[in-house]
């Protein structure tokens, strides 16, 4: 559990433990570490981009490398940093918030992580094998289908593997939330974070298969001679745009919805008030999730779908501003009259509201299809999506990590360093991206390697680069905070924030079976109800008894490793058909481990009542 036990166990045993774990809290830590490393890689790529654009006509990186940097920055940040960090938060919090001992499918939880991880590693191997993908994170055909080298092949295989992991994770959370809630935890008593995790999982389930198909078609075109996107052979490259955005638009809601829920929980906790308009908030989340599937073509206004299609998608897009507005006002009304504590999570949350609203304004402007012809592919778009993704998701991840750090590691991140990290990041963020709106309106196109001097773009780009360095400083201070906190290792209580929901009713970090006895939920904010009307402790819903736990397994790792190996085989069989052997061998490893999983009984084990009474697992 804690670092103390880990040290006692020795490094090898701990490593083996993490390679085979099916415990949602350890998988959350794996997601956090892997996502954090990819976040740093993506951040490094962003810094190189900003250095290149700091001054006009710069030759800091070559044009080809610049294309690789922008592609990998976007792809890494969306798929390998934001997604896993969201999954880290969902894994640590959702089972605890609904009073469950684990997720519905612990084995699949582990498989989902390892698939994501090997997919991400595969994508990044491309840096060392002759060049990363360079067709933009959207990989539009025919640019992507005609890109020389193997960069885009890595993009296709890496995202295919990690996408499968995400889909598995989504199904797992859906079943967990439907089937594993504690007695009394009705749908309308679930914390907002759990609600948003639920809606996000629905979006994952219905959005990711479109990407799967798009990537398959791209793979067939690039590696197996198919003609889906080649007009000369009767193909149509708009199909890729549709498939990509049918996935890609819901994807941004997949990222931001859990953050909405997290902020709702944080605002309610640190304002000491029940969330204002709980049912309206739930309704708004579901509506955003629904509308999120109706708007993908707003990324394609200039593709030439025609005025009718553009108008319909423009109106649908603007309609999303309504439920989002409901949420913004409800957050403000929750704070209004509350006794507010400006802790670090709350600071990120309060900063998020105006930042994200600005991003939303940009979104409504872009939704006006006629005006979008002016904004399309300019820095205005870059400014908009960084306002919603950084101002929403990244702020949210920082807030969530500070908030749930005790549940991850049993320690508290330093409040002082936390606030010290916040200010440079917050100021740097607005410095970097606010001015990009104007650069875009002045006509600076996105994805260009360099800009010319004396076109009124010099100052704006320099300011933007300075802002990026401030953000980097903020991120480094956060890292220092993590190190300092781990070295100090001061244990905290189960409820350091005076929380309202179930995760605060158990120790930090929780024992591996989470709840010794499943709690009985009497209403929304169950722990708060017990604090106000009861003895401050959850009433158990069952007598003390044996607890059934799943077995650890190494199979998820092997299964994902097989696909990782197969990925190389498929990429390089283009040059030499002998590589197909590697591809088939990899697939056989994966199918073989699926077979083993199928035929070997895995019944789990029991922690006995007597051991629980002696305090097993709780140290």
């Amino acid at each position, binding site marked *: 559990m804690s670092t103390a036990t880990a040290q006692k166990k020795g490094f090898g045993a701990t490593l083996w433990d993490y390679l085979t774990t099916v415990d949602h809290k350890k998988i959350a830590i794996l997601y956090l570490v892997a996502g954090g490393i990819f976040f740093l890689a993506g951040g490094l790529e962003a810094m190189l981009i900003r250095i290149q654009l700091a001054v006009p006509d710069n030759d800091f990186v070559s044009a080809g490398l610049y294309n690789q940097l922008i592609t990998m920055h976007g792809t890494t940040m969306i798929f390998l940093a934001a997604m896993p960090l969201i999954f880290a938060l969902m894994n640590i919090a959702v089972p605890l918030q609904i009073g469950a001992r684990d997720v519905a499918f612990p084995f699949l939880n582990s498989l989902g992580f390892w698939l994501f991880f090997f997919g991400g590693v595969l994508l990044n191997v491309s840096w060392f094998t002759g060049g990363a993908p360079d067709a933009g994170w959207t990989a539009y055909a025919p640019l992507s289908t005609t890109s020389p080298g193997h960069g885009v092949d890595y993009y296709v295989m890496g995202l295919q593997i990690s996408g499968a992991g995400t889909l598995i994770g989504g199904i797992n959370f859906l*079943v967990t939330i439907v089937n594993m809630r504690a007695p009394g935890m009705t749908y309308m008593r679930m914390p907002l974070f759990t609600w948003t995790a639920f809606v996000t999982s629905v979006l994952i*389930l219905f959005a990711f*298969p479109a990407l799967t198909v798009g990537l398959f078609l791209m793979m*067939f075109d690039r590696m*197996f001679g*198919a*003609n889906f996107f080649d007009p000369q052979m009767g*193909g*149509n490259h708009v199909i890729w745009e549709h498939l990509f955005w049918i996935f890609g638009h819901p994807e941004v809601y997949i990222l931001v919805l859990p953050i909405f829920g997290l902020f709702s929980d944080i605002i309610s906790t640190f304002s000491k008030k029940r969330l204002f308009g709980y049912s309206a908030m739930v309704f708004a989340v579901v509506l955003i999730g629904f509308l999120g599937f109706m708007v993908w073509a707003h990324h394609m206004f200039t593709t030439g779908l025609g005025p009718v299609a553009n108008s319909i998608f423009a109106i649908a897009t603007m309609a999303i501003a309504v439920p989002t507005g409901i949420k913004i006002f409800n957050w403000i009304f929750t704070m209004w009259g509350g006794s507010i504590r400006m802790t670090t999570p709350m600071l990120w949350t309060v900063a998020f509201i105006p930042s994200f609203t600005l991003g939303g304004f940009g979104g409504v402007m872009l939704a006006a299809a006629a005006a979008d012809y002016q904004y399309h592919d300019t820095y205005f778009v870059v400014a908009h999506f960084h306002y919603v993704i950084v101002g929403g998701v990244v702020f949210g991840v920082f807030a969530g990590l500070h908030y749930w750090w005790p549940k991850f590691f049993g320690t508290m991140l330093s409040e002082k360093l936390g606030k010290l990290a916040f200010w440079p990041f917050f100021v740097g963020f607005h410095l970097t991206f606010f001015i990009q709106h104007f650069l875009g309106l002045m006509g600076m196109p996105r994805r260009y390697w360099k800009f010319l001097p004396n076109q009124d773009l010099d100052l704006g780009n320099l300011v933007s680069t300075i802002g990026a360095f401030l953000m980097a400083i903020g991120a480094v201070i956060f890292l220092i905070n993590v190190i300092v906190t781990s070295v100090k290792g001061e244990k905290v209580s189960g409820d350091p924030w005076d929380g309202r929901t179930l995760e605060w009713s158990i120790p930090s970090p929780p024992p591996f079976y989470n709840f010794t006895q499943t709690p009985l939920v009497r209403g929304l904010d169950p722990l708060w109800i017990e604090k106000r009307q009861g003895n401050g402790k959850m009433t158990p819903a069952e007598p003390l008894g044996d607890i059934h736990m799943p077995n650890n397994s190494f199979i998820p790792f092997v299964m994902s490793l097989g696909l990782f190996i197969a990925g190389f085989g498929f990429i390089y069989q283009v040059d030499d058909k002998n590589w197909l052997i590697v591809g088939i061998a990899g697939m056989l490893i994966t199918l073989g481990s699926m077979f083993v999983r199928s035929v070997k009984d895995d019944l789990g084990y029991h922690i006995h009542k007597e051991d629980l009474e002696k305090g097993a697992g709780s140290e």
Partner: protein
Amino acid sequence: MSSDQLQRLKPGQSPHEPEKATLEGKNKFLGFWFFLGGETVLFASLFGTYLALNGPESNTSGPGPAELFGLELVFIMTVILLTSSLTSVYAIYHMKNLDFGKMQLWLGITVALGLTFLGLEIYEFYEYIMHEEHTFTSDAFGSAFYALVGFHGGHVLFGLLWIVTLMVRNSKRGLNLYNAPKYYIASLYWHFIDVVWVFIFTVVYLMGKLGG
């Protein structure tokens, strides 16, 4: 609970729905339905791609749908696959009565029908490739056709491997609460494959014949 799950269930015993008698079973049942929802989007995307690429402008070489498809073979394949869905229903009916032997028998018939279907599909593809110059790489129509129908064929193959694995693995120990959900979701998968085929038969073959 755990090792009790391995106790052999015999006809006349309870529970009537062994696939949903345990929490694990309930989770599998629900999770698999969600998975099929995702699979629906996957096939919908493939159908969309096919519908965008089955016109004359995508058919730059080789015969078009109307000349290519022969409805006789496809009709026989459809009847075989639909029958296999019915036989898998019988298998699950016997599972609910906890009659393991009859369940295995009907699953065996299902597998035989599935294999026949797959054999006929391979024969169909072989004819197209060898005698009709309609291949995966000949034009966009070819790519879209093999992607959609081939994905379905791949699902049939996976389903067969899955059901056979289950039948062999449990042949000696019979039905219990641990493997009942596995049988049940395998049959759900089999029905799903059938439903997709009904759409392929309609959209690809019938509409292809008419469209010419």
